[in-house]
C-alpha cells in the first residue's frame, strides 16, 4: 500500500516537472506581447453581408494559427471593426495605429474606404494589406508603397467574363446596356468594361449610374426596356446586384443579363431560379483543389455553412501575413515590403500559387467565370453556381490578364 502510494507520488512529481518544463516556453510566450492587427471591413450597408463573411474567415485563420503556436512564439490578436464609410474607416485606422498599438492594418471590401485607409497607411508609413476591394485605381493611379492588394482588380473581372462572352458569341456587334455603381469601384469597373467592349466589337447604347443606396430598380428596368439592348450588363456591387437580379427576373425582361462583379454571397441571396448569365469570381467553395477542400470542410464544420469568397480571401490573407512575419522574423513595415516585393510565392488554396507583383503590389492569381446550373441540379441552396475553368489557362502566364506596366499609372 505504501509503495503504491510512493509510486503515485513519484509519478505525480514527474508529471509536474514535465509540465513545468513544457509549460515554461508557453508562459514566456504568453508574456510576450501579442501581435496586434487592425482589421476593418464593412459590416453594415450594401457590403455588410460580405463583411460578415470576411470576419468569419479571418477569425478562423487567427484561431488556427494561434492553436498551432502563433507566430514567432507570439499570439495573433485581430482587432476587427465595422469600417462604416470612407471617413470613419480612415479615423478608425488612425486610432488603431495611435491608441490601440496595432502592428499593421488589414481588410476592407469597399474600394472608397480602402482608398482612405491606404492614405492613412502612407501617412504613417505603416503596412496595410488591402484584402477585398477591387477598384483598379487602388493599384493604379492611387497606389502606394505601403499597401498590397489581395483581391482581383476590376479589369481582371472584366477579362474573365468578357472572354467567356466572346467565346459564346455575345460580344461582337452586340448592343449593351450597363448599370454602374456610382462610386470609385463602379466607375473603374465601368471604364474597364467600356474598354473591353470597344476592343472586342461590342457597343454601349446606354450606361446609367446608380447610387449605392438604390434597392428598387423598376424605373431602371423600364429604361432598359425602352432602349432594347441585346445584353444587359451589371457593374454594380454588393447586394445591389442581388436586388437587380431579383427584380430583373420579376419583370421577366427578354434580354440576357451578365455582369462584371458578383460576390457569391450576393449570388446565393438572389436564390435559385432568379440568377442567370455569366459572372466572375476570385474563388468558389466547389473549387477542385485539395487544400481548398480541406478549408471548406473545416469552415462548414465550424460555422455550419460554406465559406463565401470574402471568407476565403481573408483566411489566406492572414496566412500570407503569418508567413511574411515568420520569414522576416519581424512585424516591421519595410521588411514586409521587401519580402513581398521579392515576388514570393504563396499557397492561396488554388491550382496555382500567387505572388505580389513588385511594381504595383497586386496579387497575381487565377480567376474564374461562373454560370448558373440548370434548375434542379443543385444539391443545396449554395450549389446552384457552376464554376468555369480557371483563367488564365494552365499554359498561359499568370500575368496575362493583368494590366501591363505601360498601361498602369501606378508610380510608387
Amino acid at each position, binding site marked *: 500500500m505504501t509503495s503504491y502510494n510512493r509510486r503515485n507520488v513519484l509519478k505525480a512529481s514527474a508529471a509536474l516537472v514535465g509540465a513545468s518544463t513544457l509549460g515554461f516556453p508557453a508562459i514566456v510566450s504568453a508574456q510576450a506581447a501579442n501581435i496586434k492587427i487592425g482589421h476593418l471591413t464593412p*459590416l*453594415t*450597408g450594401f457590403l*455588410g*453581408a460580405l463583411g*460578415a*463573411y470576411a470576419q468569419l474567415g479571418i477569425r478562423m485563420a487567427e484561431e488556427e494559427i494561434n492553436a498551432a503556436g502563433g507566430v514567432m512564439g507570439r499570439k495573433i490578436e485581430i482587432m476587427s471593426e465595422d469600417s462604416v464609410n470612407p471617413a470613419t474607416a480612415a479615423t478608425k485606422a488612425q486610432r488603431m495605429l495611435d491608441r490601440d498599438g496595432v502592428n499593421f492594418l488589414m481588410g476592407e471590401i469597399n474600394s472608397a474606404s480602402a482608398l482612405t485607409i491606404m492614405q492613412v497607411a502612407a501617412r504613417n508609413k505603416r503596412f496595410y494589406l488591402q484584402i477585398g476591394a477591387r477598384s483598379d485605381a487602388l493599384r493604379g493611379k492611387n497606389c502606394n508603397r505601403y499597401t498590397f492588394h489581395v483581391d482581383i482588380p476590376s479589369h481582371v473581372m472584366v477579362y474573365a467574363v468578357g472572354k467567356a462572352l466572346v467565346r459564346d458569341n455575345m460580344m461582337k456587334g452586340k448592343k449593351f446596356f450597363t448599370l454602374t455603381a*456610382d462610386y470609385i469601384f463602379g466607375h473603374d469597373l465601368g471604364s474597364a468594361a467600356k474598354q473591353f467592349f470597344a476592343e472586342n466589337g461590342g457597343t454601349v447604347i446606354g450606361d*446609367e*449610374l*446608380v*447610387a449605392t*443606396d*438604390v*434597392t*428598387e430598380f*423598376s*424605373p*431602371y428596368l*423600364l*429604361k432598359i*426596356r*425602352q432602349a432594347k439592348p441585346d445584353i444587359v450588363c451589371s457593374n454594380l456591387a454588393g*447586394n445591389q446586384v*442581388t*436586388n437587380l437580379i*431579383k*427584380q430583373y*427576373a*420579376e*419583370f*421577366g425582361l427578354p434580354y440576357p443579363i451578365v455582369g462584371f462583379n458578383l460576390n457569391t*454571397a*450576393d449570388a*446565393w*441571396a*438572389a*436564390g435559385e*431560379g*432568379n440568377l442567370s448569365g455569366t459572372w466572375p469570381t476570385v474563388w468558389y467553395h466547389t473549387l477542385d483543389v485539395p487544400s481548398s477542400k480541406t478549408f471548406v470542410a473545416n469552415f462548414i464544420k465550424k460555422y455550419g455553412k460554406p465559406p463565401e469568397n470574402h471568407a476565403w480571401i481573408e483566411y489566406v490573407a492572414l496566412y500570407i501575413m503569418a508567413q511574411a512575419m515568420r520569414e522576416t522574423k519581424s512585424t516591421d513595415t519595410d521588411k514586409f515590403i521587401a519580402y513581398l516585393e521579392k515576388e514570393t510565392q504563396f499557397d492561396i488554396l488554388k491550382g496555382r500559387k500567387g505572388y505580389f507583383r513588385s511594381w504595383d503590389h497586386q496579387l497575381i492569381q487565377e480567376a474564374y467565370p461562373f454560370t448558373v446550373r440548370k434548375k434542379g441540379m443543385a444539391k443545396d441552396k449554395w450549389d446552384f453556381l457552376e464554376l468555369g475553368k480557371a483563367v488564365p489557362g494552365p499554359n498561359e502566364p499568370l500575368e496575362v490578364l493583368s494590366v501591363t506596366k505601360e498601361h498602369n499609372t501606378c508610380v510608387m
Partner: protein
Amino acid sequence: MQLEFLLEQVVNGLVLGGYYLLIALGLSLIFSVGGVINLAHGAFYAIGAYISLEITKYLGFGPAIVLSPVAVAMLGILFERFLLRRFYAADPILSLLVTFGLAMIAEQLIRMIWGASPISVNMPAVFKGSVFLGDFIFSRYRLLLLAVVVVVLVSIWLLLHKASFGRVIRAGIQKPDMVAALGIRLQPYMTAIVMLGVGMAALGGALFAPITIVHPAMGAEVLTVAFVVVVIGGLGSFWGVVLSALLVGVVRGITINFVPAAGEASMYVLMFLVLMFRPRGLLGERIEKFET
C-alpha cells in the same frame, strides 16, 4: 415616343408610391395621435419580412402575408403598452431616443436570430413575369401589391371616416383634452392605432420581401423614405400621406428617366421644396397640441 416612356415611369411610380404608403401611413397615424415619431417603425417592417419568410416555409406565401402583419400587430400591443405609452406627454427627444434604441436592438436581434447574410424569398411562380397593357409593362407581382394596397387604403379610410372609432381618433388628434372631458379614454384607441400602424409596416415588409432581399438593415433603409413621405404629406391628413407617397414614387421614376444618378436624391429635393413653400406639408392640418 418620349411621352409614352414618361407615362410608363409615372404609372410605375404610382405603384411604388403605393408601397411607400403602406409604411408611411402607420408612421403618420402614430405621430398624429400620439405625438411620437416612431423611429422603430422600420424595425417592424423588417420583423414583418422575417416572420413572413418563416411562415412561407411552412404554410406558403398567402398565409404569410396575412399572418405576419397580425403577429407584428400583437408585438405592437406590447410596444405601445409597455414602452410608447410612457412617452406621450414627455419631451419628444425621449421618445426619439427610445424608439431609435429599440430599432437598433431589433436590428441586432435579427442579426443574432437569422444571421447577417441576406435571405432570399421567392415569389410564387404565378406572379413572376409581366403583363402587357397596350405597350405598358407591369410586373404581375406589383399588380398584386397594388391591389392589396388599395384594399388596405380603402379599409383604413372607412375605419377613420365612417366608423365611431375614426371619429374618436380624429377628435383625439385635434383636441385630446376635449375627448378626455367627454369621458373617453384615448389609450385603447392609441393601442389600436399602433397595432394598425406597425401591422401595415409588417405587411409592407412581407410584400416587398420577394422583390428585394431580406436583411437586418432593411428597416433602417425604408424608414428614411417613410419619414420623408410623412413630412411632405403633412401631419394629421390621411390624403396628405396618400398624395405624398404617390408623388415621391412618381418624382423618383421621372428623375431616373432623365437623370438616373439623381434618382435617390429626388425625394429629398422634393421635401426641401415643399418645406420651403408649405412648412406644414402638402395637406397638413394645423394641430394645436404641436403648435407652441
